[in-house]
């Protein structure tokens, strides 16, 4: 199986229900073809870089899924026929994916979110999950970098305030 990523621009003039019906239709298509929906992300309304069908704004939806080429073909055929979708684009992310492993990864990620306990517990979960350790370990590292930067800034602030106090004291 392959991993695909489809971005759909939905007409922003639609009501939420109409939009939801379109999105449900797409997710049903994926599940009907024995595909696996990995990620479903609604970016919300954004300004388009250029006009599409006379619209300057669009409602972006991102779907990541595992499936075969026939699923993509069917999905794109439906999007092309449907007037509710302004434009779409499918990108192949990974050419060889084991759907069961991806499933396990999703479940592990969901579990971690539910638990959301301090770091040591998360590390144990990562060890148990074994194979999906690399993608899960990276986010904390990224998040840790900015936080350290913030603490440095705070320290600087603290130092400067101390200096100010000292200056005031001297005056």
């Amino acid at each position: 199986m392959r991993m695909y990523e489809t971005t759909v621009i939905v007409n922003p003039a639609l009501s939420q229900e109409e939009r939801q019906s379109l999105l449900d239709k797409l997710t049903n298509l994926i599940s009907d073809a024995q595909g696996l929906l990995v990620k479903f992300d609604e970016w919300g309304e954004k300004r388009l870089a250029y006009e599409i069908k006379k619209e300057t704004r669009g409602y972006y939806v991102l779907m990541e899924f595992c499936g075969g080429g026939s699923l993509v073909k069917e999905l794109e055929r439906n999007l092309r026929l449907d007037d509710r979708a302004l434009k779409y684009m499918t990108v192949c992310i990974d050419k060889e994916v084991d759907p069961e492993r991806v499933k396990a990864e999703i479940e592990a990620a969901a579990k971690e979110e539910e638990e959301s306990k301090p770091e040591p517990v998360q590390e144990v979960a990562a060890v148990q999950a074994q194979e999906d350790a690399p993608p899960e370990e990276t986010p904390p590292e990224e998040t840790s970098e900015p936080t350290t930067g913030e603490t440095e800034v705070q320290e600087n602030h603290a130092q400067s305030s101390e200096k100010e106090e000292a200056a005031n004291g001297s005056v």
Partner: protein
Amino acid sequence: MAAYRQRRQKRRVFRRRKICRFCADSSFVVDYKNARTLRLFTTERGKIIPRRISGNCAKHQRQLTTAIKRARTIALMPYAATLSLY
């Protein structure tokens, strides 16, 4: 000849070393969904800035061009922008 050599040396001094920003910072990733970082590598008009100016390495410039082209397809970035858009 001496004057010519001096001139050549001077020219060399002014050259600044360019580093690939994606190689220097591992958290800086090429992604077509992140239009804000891609915009750093396009001109105001929306043209892709060449490697000789941006200083990117060949590998990342290749990734960048495909990313920008993908972003254009999905209307995150303009094919051709008027200056007022920015």
